[in-house]
Structures are given as structure tokens and as C-alpha cells.
């Protein structure tokens, strides 16, 4: 059904964009171990994106009769057709922003894929079973860095605090319920993200306490009539990300690679 397709695109776009931001950092990490870790996480997310987007394309084909491959979905959609949350679009302003983005997103991903392990859809449940293990590693990696930075030096704690303040306003969108979420939740295909928030909150509280950091007292991002990433309404930096990602593919229409 349409809701299932939209839902898979959301999950796939989240993974694709999160992967891209980490890929930008390869050769720029603070130490070689992090080049390995960040590229590893980027690769996991890219793998998830490929499974999710391909599956979305095949389900869509059942509705429309036209198949869009993972590459057509990644490279030939315009910005307003991407339905990832804005959280994953955030640039790698500094390493603290990267850690904060990964912490907030992977803590959600763990809850998400845990829930989707029970999907009534066998293929999605299979994807989730693999993804949940990866997300647990990603979350652990981000949580350990959050603690190191929060409990490190004055500078690292300041940077981590600033990064959490910048990103936190975009977390509400991740857990927002809407028609698509309710529809997939109703059929058991997916899960309504609103239900994942309490466990996420509890996890975050634990990590922040260990890191000696405060939960940011910031309001969710407002404006745009309440529209956001799930509606194809993104942030300005996202357009540049897509230009870079898609330029070569779009420059050779119809070519195989």
C-alpha cells in the first residue's frame, strides 16, 4: 500500500543521508581509529538504505507498475521528494555535532528496528533484524564519545553542549506521528515513532547523566506551517548535499555504472 511505500522511503532516506554525512568525514577524523569507525557506520547505514529503498521501489511497482531502483530513488529525486528527517541532514560542523547527530539518531534507530523486528512483513522484519545489531553498535559508539566529550575538557564539554542544543530541536520531528505512521502501525507493517520516544528519552537521560551534560532546554523547531523533512521540507544545507551526491549520476542520463 501507499503508506508502506512512504514509510520505507522515510527509513531509507534517513539511512542514506545519515550515511552520506559520515562518508564526508572519511580522511578527516580526529584519529585513524575513527576513520575506521565512522566509515564502518557509514557503510552499515548505506547497506540499510539500499535494502530499504530497493524494497520501497518494488512495493511501489506493485501499485504503479513502474519500478524505481535504489539508484533512481537516490539519484533522481529532487530535494522535495526526499522524506528523511532533518536531524540526519545536519553538517559535521565539528566532531561534537557528528557525535550528537549519531547519538540522537542511532538511539532512535535501536528502538525503531527493535520494534520492526516484529513487523508483520517478513522482508522488513528481516531487514530490521540485521539493522538492530548495527544500530546498537552505532549507538554505543556515539554514547561512548558523548561521555568522553562531556566528561573530557572544558572545551569538549562546551562543544558537546552546543551541538546537543543545535540538534535537539529537530528530534521532535523524528517521533512525530502522522497519517503514514498511523497507517503502517495499524497494519503492523511498521510502527508509530511516537511510541518509541519514552525508551529513547530514558536512554538519552542515562547517557547525558554519565556524561555530566544537561538535557537541552530548547523548543522544537517551529515555522513552515509545521511541515518538515517527512513532508519534503528540509534544511538549506541539504540541497548542497544532494548536488554533490547526484551530480555525476545526473550528468550521464541512462548510463550504467
Amino acid at each position: 500500500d501507499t503508506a508502506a511505500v512512504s514509510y520505507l522511503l522515510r527509513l531509507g532516506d534517513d539511512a542514506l543521508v545519515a550515511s552520506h554525512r559520515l562518508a564526508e568525514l572519511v580522511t578527516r577524523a580526529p584519529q585513524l581509529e575513527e576513520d575506521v569507525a565512522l566509515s564502518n557506520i557509514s557503510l552499515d547505514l548505506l547497506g540499510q538504505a539500499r535494502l530499504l529503498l530497493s524494497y520501497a521501489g518494488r512495493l511501489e511497482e506493485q501499485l504503479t507498475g513502474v519500478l524505481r531502483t535504489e539508484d533512481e530513488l537516490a539519484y533522481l529525486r529532487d530535494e522535495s521528494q526526499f522524506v528523511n528527517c532533518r536531524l540526519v541532514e545536519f553538517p559535521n560542523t565539528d566532531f561534537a555535532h557528528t557525535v550528537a547527530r549519531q547519538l540522537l539518531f542511532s538511539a532512535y534507530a535501536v528502538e525503531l528496528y527493535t520494534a520492526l523486528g516484529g513487523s508483520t512483513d517478513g522482508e522488513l522484519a528481516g531487514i530490521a533484524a540485521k539493522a538492530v545489531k548495527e544500530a546498537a553498535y552505532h549507538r554505543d559508539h556515539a554514547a561512548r564519545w558523548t561521555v568522553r566529550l562531556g566528561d573530557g575538557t572544558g572545551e569538549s564539554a562546551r562543544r558537546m553542549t552546543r551541538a546537543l542544543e543545535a540538534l535537539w530541536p529537530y528530534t521532535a520531528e523524528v517521533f512525530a506521528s502522522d497519517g503514514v505512521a498511523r497507517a503502517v502501525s495499524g497494519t503492523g507493517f511498521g510502527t508509530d515513532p511516537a511510541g518509541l520516544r519514552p525508551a529513547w528519552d530514558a536512554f538519552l537521560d542515562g547517557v547525558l547523566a554519565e556524561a555530566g551534560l544537561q538535557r537541552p532546554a530548547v523548543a522544537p523547531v517551529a515555522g513552515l506551517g509545521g511541515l518538515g523533512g517527512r513532508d519534503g521540507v528540509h534544511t538549506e544545507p541539504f540541497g548542497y548535499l544532494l548536488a554533490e551526491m547526484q551530480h555525476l549520476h545526473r550528468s550521464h542520463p541512462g548510463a550504467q555504472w
Partner: protein
Amino acid sequence: MTITEDTQHTGDGGWRERFDAMIAADERIEPRDDMPDDYRDTLVRQIAQHAHSEIIGMQPEANWITRAPSLKRKAVLLAKVQDEAGHGLYLYSAAETLGTSRAEMLDLLHEGRQKYSSIFNYPTLTWADVGVIGWLVDGAAITNQVPLCRCSYGPYARAMVRICKEESFHQRQGFEILHVLARGTPAQREMAQDAVNRWYWPSLMMFGPPDAESAHSDTSMAYGIKRFSNDELRQKFVDMIVPQAEALGLTLPDADLVWNERRGHYDFGEIDWSEFKQVLKGNGPCNRQRLERRRAAHADGAWVREAARAHAANRAARTREEATP
């Protein structure tokens, strides 16, 4: 900062005979064994340079990760660059067994006092360059490195076994990229040929200067670190790539390339060593860019590494406090 400050040999005077006997018997020297200073110095320099080449070598390929033209190719490339970071880690560890820390080696790299392979001072200008790096650059690296799997120093030899296995996988992936391009649209085919044109000569230079001019080869040969001369390896490489280029349907930009029945090898053209020397001296198209990226990553990461150290110290202090009744 040097990890082992004591480079004295064990009191026993017969170590040198034992060392020479082990080399002669083609046995592996291990970190605990006594070894001559020039053996240690040669190895540290070579392994460090090799490690630096792995991490600087990530840059030309990483240049295309975010722009890879399909998600599958992106994944393969990302995995490859990750492998290179891993190779860097093994190699720095192998060098550390000889008493030089990674931090020390990185400082030497950042100050321009230790080199990395000059090949990485060329730019990757199109997606096809990623294919050519896999095919020609990794191909040349494997040709150089396979004999190092039998190198006399154990930790280096073992690192090379693992690295060569992954490199040959990378080489096949590069070949595969070019194979698709060479059979693709006219623009793709042109992209592939252009990349081969730009990388062919630099890849031949990867084996270093002609034997007659090579500075370190004698010591390295005597100590069982190097097994073949620069020119022997270069010939082996040319003999390997000529049929591969034919299979791809791409032309190697060398008018003198011809099978020599008498030698049983391909003859090839004269290499422009003045270009090689210019690039080695720092005047290549990307020397400055590569080193600046590396230095910037290191400098930008300083506060992160410091935070990690501070946290470890904080935690240790808390543990001690808790242990105090």
C-alpha cells in the same frame, strides 16, 4: 617520544651471528630478537612510509565516495577506503614493534620528514580514476608487496599477508569499474581512457628509480627485506597489465610497448624521471593538498584526542576514589 628507550642489545655477544644465521636461513626476525641498527632503521623507515601511504592514499579515493554514481559502487569504495585505514593501523602497529610510536611517525609525516608514495600526489579527476587506482595503482602495490609477505621481519611479513589479500580484492574491483565504463556510453569510455592515460606512467614510477640509481636497495636485499629489484618488479607489472588492458579494450599510452620474444617480456617506453623527481620534491599537483588535509584533520582533532585522554584520567581518578575506603 620513543616507546622503548633502550636500544642496547642483550649482553650476550653472539647475537650478530645468530641474526645473520637467521637471515641466511630465511627465518623470521621477531621484535624480541636482537637486530643491527641499520636493519631496524631501514625497516622503521620503510614500514612508516608504507603506513603513511595507506592513510594518504585514502584521500584520492575518498574524493569520490560522496559522488559515486551508484549506491553499490559507493558501498564498495567506502569499504575499500576503510580497508586502507585498517592497513594503516596494522602497519603503524608493526612499526611500533620496532620502538617508534605512531604519534612520532605521524609527526614526521606532518612535518614532511617522512615520505609517502608519490603516486598519491596525483588528483582523481573523474570516477574512472577510482577504477584506474584499483587496477593500476593497487596492481603495482601488490606487485611490490607480495614479495614482502616473505620479508625477514615477522610482524611486517604478517601484516603484508593480510594486506595483500585485501589489495587483490581491490584490484579486481577497480578492473570491474573500468570494464563497465569501457563498455558503457561514449562519454564513459572516454572517461576510462583518459584516466588510463593519466595514470599509466605514474604507476610505472611507483617501483622507484632504475636499479642503477636506487639508494636503499642493497641493504634491503642483503637483509631479506626486499627480494626483487625495482626494475624486476616494474617489468613484472608491465607484463601483467598489458593483457589486462587488452581485455578491457583500453589503450596504454606508450608507443614503445611491444612483446619482446627474446626477453620473454614486454618492452616499454622511457619513463620521464624528471617528472618523478619533481613530484618527489613536493611539486606534484597534490603534494600540498594531501599534506594539508592530513595536518588539518590532525589539528582539528586535537581537542577530541585531548578530551578522550582527560576523560580516561577522570575515570581512573574516580575509580581510585571509589576504591579508597
